[in-house]
């Protein structure tokens, strides 16, 4: 039974990202590398955040101190990754053009932004859930001592939310910075603010019988907002969509 639960939660958390990987990233070695590198950058940001948390010994149980800094560090490293990509952009474009023209496909920086956001999200979600998943297969389950019984499933859904959110945040971040002008501030600003909002809302989960509905609803609402923002940023508007549908 525990294995069922573990399998279920794994599929909830990783089903959509895995499909994304198989269909959009797996056959493009370049995107694979970008995802890996951005995952590494996320790890570095986590390392910094952990150093901070570790160093301030008395506040170790007060996660409310460490979380905003973790968010800030993540966004700083996202920006650093953007700068790295910019530096290599000239050469990268040559690579992509060649590889993809060979396949008859054309794409632009969107793929890099997408792959980078995906890498960030995947490693972020993995660190959040993988230990929980491995504990899930053990004997017993949660909810006996008055803790919420929805721990596992809420974690799985929140992980899915995090992975997708990070993907869209990556796209928004990179696309806005590329666009320039006022978007250079709106885009990253939106990303940082919504990230901070999401993470701080999940702090509510720390109570004994948390209301997962709050963080879940807020998380998915933010996700919806990010999707719409991304679509708008990429140039779609209602007319385009109507034309495509009809």
């Amino acid at each position, binding site marked *: 039974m525990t294995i069922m639960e573990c399998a279920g939660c794994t599929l909830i958390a990783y089903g959509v990202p895995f499909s994304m990987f198989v269909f959009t990233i797996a*056959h493009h*070695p*370049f995107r*694979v*590398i970008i995802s*890996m*590198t951005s*995952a*590494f950058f996320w*790890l570095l940001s*986590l*390392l910094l*955040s*952990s*150093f901070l*948390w*570790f160093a301030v010994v008395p506040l*170790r149980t007060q*996660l409310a101190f*460490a*979380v905003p800094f*973790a*968010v800030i560090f*993540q966004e700083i490293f996202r920006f650093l990754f953007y700068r790295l990509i910019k530096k*290599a952009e*000239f*050469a*990268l474009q*040559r*690579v992509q053009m*060649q*590889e993809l*023209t*060979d*396949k*008859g496909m054309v794409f632009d920086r969107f793929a890099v932004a997408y792959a980078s956001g995906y890498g960030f999200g995947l*490693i*972020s979600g*993995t*660190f*959040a*859930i*993988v*230990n*929980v*998943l*491995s504990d899930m297969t053990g004997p017993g389950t949660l909810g006996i001592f008055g803790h919420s019984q929805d*721990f596992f499933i*809420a*974690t799985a859904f*929140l992980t899915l939310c*995090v992975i997708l959110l990070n993907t869209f945040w990556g796209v928004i971040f990179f696309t806005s910075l590329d666009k320039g002008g006022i978007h250079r501030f709106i885009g990253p600003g939106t990303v940082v603010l919504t990230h901070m909002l*999401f*993470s701080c809302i*999940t*702090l509510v*989960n*720390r109570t004994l019988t*948390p209301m997962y509905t709050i*963080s879940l609803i807020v998380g998915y609402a933010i996700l919806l907002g990010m999707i719409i923002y991304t679509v708008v940023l990429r140039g779609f508007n209602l007319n385009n969509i109507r034309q495509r549908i009809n």
Partner: protein
Amino acid sequence: MHRLIDDNQDSPDEMTELLKSQDNDTIIDGPETSTDGENISSNAAATASSHSRVEAIDPQDHETTHRHRRNEQPDEQRPLNIEHEEIFKYGASHVVKLFVPVSLCMLIVIITIKTTSSYTPGGATWAYTPFTEDKSTNTQRILFSLANTFIFMGFVITATVILILLYKFKCYKIIHGWLILTTLMLLFFFLYSYFSSISASLNRPIDMITICFITWNIGAVGMFCIHWKGPLPIQQAYLIFMSALLALVFYKFLPDWTGWLILGVISIWDLIAVLCPKGPLRILVETAHERGEQIFPALIYSSTMVYMVTAVDPPPREPQFAPDNVDTNMAVNVDETLNEEQRNQRAAIRNNNARRQLIPRSDVPQTATRREPARYVVERSNSPVIDDDDDDEKGVKLGLGDFIFYSILLAKASALGDWNVTIACYVSLLIGLCLTLLLLAIIRKALPALPISITFGLVLYFSTVYIIGPFSAELNLGQVFI
């Protein structure tokens, strides 16, 4: 199309190497998907292949001679963007072609460790690390671990030196025989013990007849695939599996702290041996360079095989460019092989991927259309001329020793049971590999593959265990998502 064929024929010059595949087929086949790639060994610079690859498909460059000359020019004279182009153009698919087998090897090791209990450390000690680590104080433990490490490194260095001496005095048969013996032992003995421990852990008895039948078949096919000819995927599977077996053996027998110290010291040794002017591997490279030969059969994982080598016969004008190209290729290839040699020494048990043998030149089949100098022939001789349109992908190569040590690191990382550590080490190892390949393409000299990855892996292991781990555990407990 004719021009393309010319290009193809040119490229073998630059690309004839130990296990290099040809550009030819890729070009002849038209636009390639991400399967095209060159042979980039972990130690070999991608230069030669990049050059030829770029030139081969570059429509603006119509001067093949010009291209060859450009090949030989030092890097500084070429515009930076062309270098970048070469670095990145073929880098991505190559790197991913190395990601997959390395990941598979690690996966096999981790699955075996998690499911069976017989491959956990603690148990008999082996001769290479004679001191145990059950000491009362930490200082004593460190001291004995250091002693173990130095004894182990002593074995490695001795074996490397012996190998170099054998090579210098042209005792090719001894080397070849040695490699065959080690493959034999690995394929039969270790496989048998692997199956025994699997059946013991899963609590399913298997009768001797079945085990012998299976082991014999797998072993015999393995010997064929590795030392002679066989389908490429099967050979790759054997190499990955052999590396995983070796890594498991190492993981089982290396005591805890000794293992970490060995990983660190071997990266340093790798750095010294390949980069220092008096380093043994460098001497080996130069000797092979002087003789204009392959070094000798090495343990190299290759994603494309020798089959494609003779798809197109080189045009007569090639020989004039041959020496330089051969040299470049040699240097490139030889270095790569060297590293592998060194790896083999360390393992002290060889598994084998000896596609290219040191055969006397007379054994080389001479086709009517072949006009290559003898050097090429030696390099390519063993490969049968099979279908031109098959196996036309370019490939990448990585030494099996790298597989083994990466897997050892990951096995030790997974020993704690904390999956965060495992994943962090996995990502850092792959990024290290990526960086190494990038550095190779930039510096275009022989570079060791271990140091960067192992450094990243070690740093991230210790920081994840002691610093990130508790933070992450606290976050998971409260379901706080950062």
